[in-house]
């Protein structure tokens, strides 16, 4: 497994459970499963023009993880940083009914079945990360300083 950093840009949508699961799964990958590899990119900041977020996504492999089929993270990333290396739609992993559940959204209401969903999504994220060919989007500049191609 390569040690090259991989960006994960995920939705954190508050309107339904899919957003909550997406957020927690991404955090799990970043904190536990691929701590030295995963770099989370803040979606609101990315979309609002965050220089660090966008520069990273232009240079390093980046995957998007969306809580529902609106695919806000995927579309936003593609619009601002070019083609992404992979995308996940959590509603396809945990089922649309679960993803669009608006009754259970807050962290404090989650039960063990929801944490199992988090684990399932986290595993899919890791699977996608591990399968990435860093050169799949064209070779990155060697020794690039993450300038986003400016230098």
């Amino acid at each position: 497994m390569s040690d090259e950093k991989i960006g994960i840009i995920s939705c954190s949508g508050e309107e339904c459970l899919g957003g909550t699961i997406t957020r927690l799964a991404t955090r799990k990958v970043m904190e536990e499963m691929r701590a030295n590899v995963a770099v989370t990119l803040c979606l609101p900041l990315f979309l609002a023009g965050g220089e660090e977020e966008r520069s990273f996504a232009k240079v390093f492999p980046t995957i998007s993880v969306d809580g529902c089929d609106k695919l806000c993270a995927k579309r936003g990333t593609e619009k601002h940083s070019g083609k992404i290396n992979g995308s996940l739609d959590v509603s396809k992993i945990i089922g649309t009914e679960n993803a669009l559940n608006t009754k259970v959204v807050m962290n404090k209401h989650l039960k063990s079945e929801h944490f199992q969903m988090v684990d399932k999504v986290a595993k899919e994220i890791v699977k996608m990360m591990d399968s990435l060919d860093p050169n799949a989007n064209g070779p990155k500049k060697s020794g690039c300083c993450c300038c986003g191609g400016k230098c």
Partner: protein
Amino acid sequence: MNFMSEKTKVVPCSGIGKVYGLMAREAVLTAVHELCPGKAETVCLGYIVTGDREAKEKIEGFDCVTVDGCPKMCAAKNVKIAGGVIKEEIKVMDTVKEIKSKNYGSATKLEADGEKVVAAIAAKIAGNIA
């Protein structure tokens, strides 16, 4: 004000990188689902920023309250751009300063003091909802 719906739209930044993003998210959900059920609704910031017409229709002309976790103020800025009428721009940091603690939790899980901040912000949000 848009008379098609009287619900106030509440939009958190939900930044995934910091505990303040989680506080914003949980505070908004507490206010909307527990303190003011039926009077307010959340709108995903990510969706607003896609620029989709449907997203814009949810915000444009409506009373909005934004909750931002950091000085970048992503929620406030983008709701303004989308045409929302912002009643209050709430900053999580302002409440964090009022409730000093050495451990609020992390961007994944809040500790007790983090929950206190959430409760305080939720009350501020509720104060803006008729």
